[in-house]
């Protein structure tokens, strides 16, 4: 067990935890934030996407020790009131279906907009590699374009 301390959604947190615990399970079980989802555990599906110092990362495949001293933002910390342009666009375009992959999709899309404010279709193709079994991809693309225009 090791004490790991980092910034989670703007708050300083610390935990005495097995340092090999995936960041995903630390977020869900140690800090009780369940918006970040487990989908595959091998960084293939992206349901666990969070921001680590602003970059979209797959938290199932990063040990919690890698977050030491850094800034982690989860879906719960993206905005206080669903006011992030991506969240607004997601509702305006009625993107989610079952919704399970959508926290990861939104975090990936938000990171894309932060880096490329007006992404092309090609930029979206490259950045949004998460899996959605309901098949919401069409509306995801439309919503990202809409959010970029705001």
């Amino acid at each position, binding site marked *: 067990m090791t004490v790991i301390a980092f910034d989670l959604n703007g708050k300083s947190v610390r935990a005495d935890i097995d340092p090999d615990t995936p960041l995903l399970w630390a977020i869900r079980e140690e800090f009780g934030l369940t918006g970040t989802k487990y989908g595959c555990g091998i960084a293939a599906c992206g349901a666990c996407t969070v921001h680590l110092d602003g970059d979209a990362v797959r938290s199932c495949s990063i040990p919690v020790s890698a977050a030491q001293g850094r800034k982690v933002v989860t879906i719960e910390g993206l905005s206080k009131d669903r006011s992030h342009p991506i969240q607004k666009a997601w509702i305006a375009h*009625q993107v989610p*279906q079952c919704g399970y992959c959508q926290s990861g999709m939104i975090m990936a899309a938000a990171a894309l907009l932060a880096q490329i404010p007006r992404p092309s279709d090609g930029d979206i193709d490259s950045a949004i590699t998460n899996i959605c079994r309901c098949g919401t991809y069409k509306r995801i693309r439309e919503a990202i374009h809409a959010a970029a225009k705001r």
Partner: protein
Amino acid sequence: MSLSASRFKHKIAEIGEIVAKEIDGVEDGFAALDPSAALLSRATRRTVLKAIAMSGVSLAIGATLPADGSAEAADESRLNAWVGIRADGKAVIVVSQTEMGQGISTTLPVVLADELGILLQDIVLRDASFDPAYRHPQYNWMFTGNSESIQAFYDLMRRMGAAAREMLVAAAAQRLKVKPEELSVDAGKIRHAPSGRSIGFGAVAAAAARLPVPGAPKLKAQSKLAFVGRPVPRFDLPAKTDGSAKFGIDVAVPGMLSAALKRSPWPGGKPSQYSAETIKAQPGVVAVVELPDGIAVVAQTYWQARKALDSAKITWGAAETKDLASSTIADDYRHRLEQGPFYVHLQKGDGDAGTAGKRMEAVYEIPFQAHATMEPMNCTASVTDHSCEIWVPTQGMELTHGLAMRETGLQPEQIKIHRTLAGGGFGRRLLADFVKQAIQISKRVGVPTKLVWSREEDMTHDAYRPAMLHRISAVLDGTGKPRAIGHRVVSPSHLLYVFPRPTFPDLKDWSSPIAPPPQYDSMAVEGLISALYDIPNQRIEQHYYDSKIPVSVWRTTGHGPNNFVLESFIDELAAAAARDPLELRRELLRGNNRALKVLDLAAQKAGWGQPLPPGHARGLAFANAFGGLIAQVAEIEIRGKDIKLERIVSAVDPGRVLDPGIAESNIAGGIVWGISALRTQITFKNGSPEQSNFDSFDPLHLWETPRMEVHFIESGEKLGGMGEIGPVPTSAAVCNAIAAATGERIRSLPITAAGFNFV
């Protein structure tokens, strides 16, 4: 996803006398199997409503009130089992169907609210627990599947909304001392125009709840419905954009432990050697629970349980399934295709012999598929000597409830099921295998326990969409038009685990498969019997394959595979006669104006027949499935074996479209499902699936997704379902485009086996 006597009767009517004779005694057979289902199948929705109405408010509040834990507030007045009015005027509407992405928790409550006369912002949803009041009105069975929720509950929702409205109006009439006919209802208010007075729902709700429930409430004219037919913002979406939506995997119960599970790599194997002591010595581990075919590790957190389990050395006992391999299974299927025996689902005219003419024949192969819901199977259970509480994302409320009774020996009212949002269902969550495990684990450790399957467990212990083998044949007239068609299908039952069981006291084992009698198992040939093509001679046969691999229903059930075969073969016939695939289908649908409209709309919107750039091609497919009609045109660009999906245009006639926004999302998402199934498969080696995660089972991604256009036609015919019709024609449409571009006909899925892939 189950058959009812009534649905089967429909099929008898459809397939004519010859088959009806062959399956004589079907009614009795069904009644013997499930008396309550047979009884209910004879009841119309209206009599169901009456039964509920006659039972009155006391029953609605007593025995049949949703036992969902969210007990009604003191200021809520229940008007029937589906709706109550709070003192503040808001309507509490019960959601009977599982929300798994299809939008049903918006559409059905909105239908009721529209009839009631209340604004969308005044709706409060309450998720139903298991309760007989919320059973499917025809099957007498509580479940969500087979694209049936709208078809089954639309009329009932309207009548329940109308009945509640009439009670509120009657109470307001007494209060205002006027005749009910002088009152009108709008936006939660009852207005008396002559005197200019009005009164809110909340003010008369308590009085209304004491009035008799009208047996035959008067429904609003279609034109007076404010929301039905318009896109409504889904109620479940805001929570799905900020992380607050609670799925089964997110359940937290005080004192709860978490469990990870590893089961035998081959079906039916038992753990033979492992060290429970070594596992227990790992950090956080509380208990090791041996299940009949697996080992569960229970720990303070899921990750602790998972880590301890992953590090454990477990050897597994042999089972007869240990040598199962895809190659030998395929050989077995081919052997059965030659040897039979076959059950004849349909014989029409001279069967597949028909008149003299050119004969064509082809064999098509369909692989096993995993559901791979994004949320892996999970269940939280808290079992004591006197109670069993379950939190679970399930489509199969009735199965779950029955299984809990059997596993615990408790009475129906001692079982409490909290249904959560489901991170995908696609048929997988109709089964209750994971519920049984969670109950067994909680019983053993004596505290609430959340069982979460790893992705690997989920993919390697699915009840898969069965593999199917299909010989299709046709006899053609001089113009290349089929005069006879024959289907020989080798398939397991899709219904083994989900076929409605006998009533509770007769339960045997709800977690074991039961094979319905072959005459009920028409799911293996669905889409063939209901094909709309005018072919006078037909024979449709099935060999029931007793699969050792667990199989069950999967989004599109038999419709998907059967449509792939039929619609690919129609294109083969067109190619052989050098006829245009659209024109041949138009001739086969001559006189069916509803079908022609759908076909023509898709063709017109896709620019069928117009020139394409080099390397581009179009493919067409048509289906009659899940109560609606659909045509799709796929346009692809092909370079060598690399396929770029350019565009898929759909025309859909589901009778009426209750919510165009939600309907479009179901079709577009369904197409992605259909395309994914062109390249995913589950294969077996040494009794185990060779795919275990999203690296080797590779669904479609955003960058591979084509542009999609969905066009609706509202013929006004009987309502169809939207959840599964979208992907039904997709496989054939894409493969017909591949054949048009390359001349290569794909008769065996996935397309990757022939070297193709999407880019």
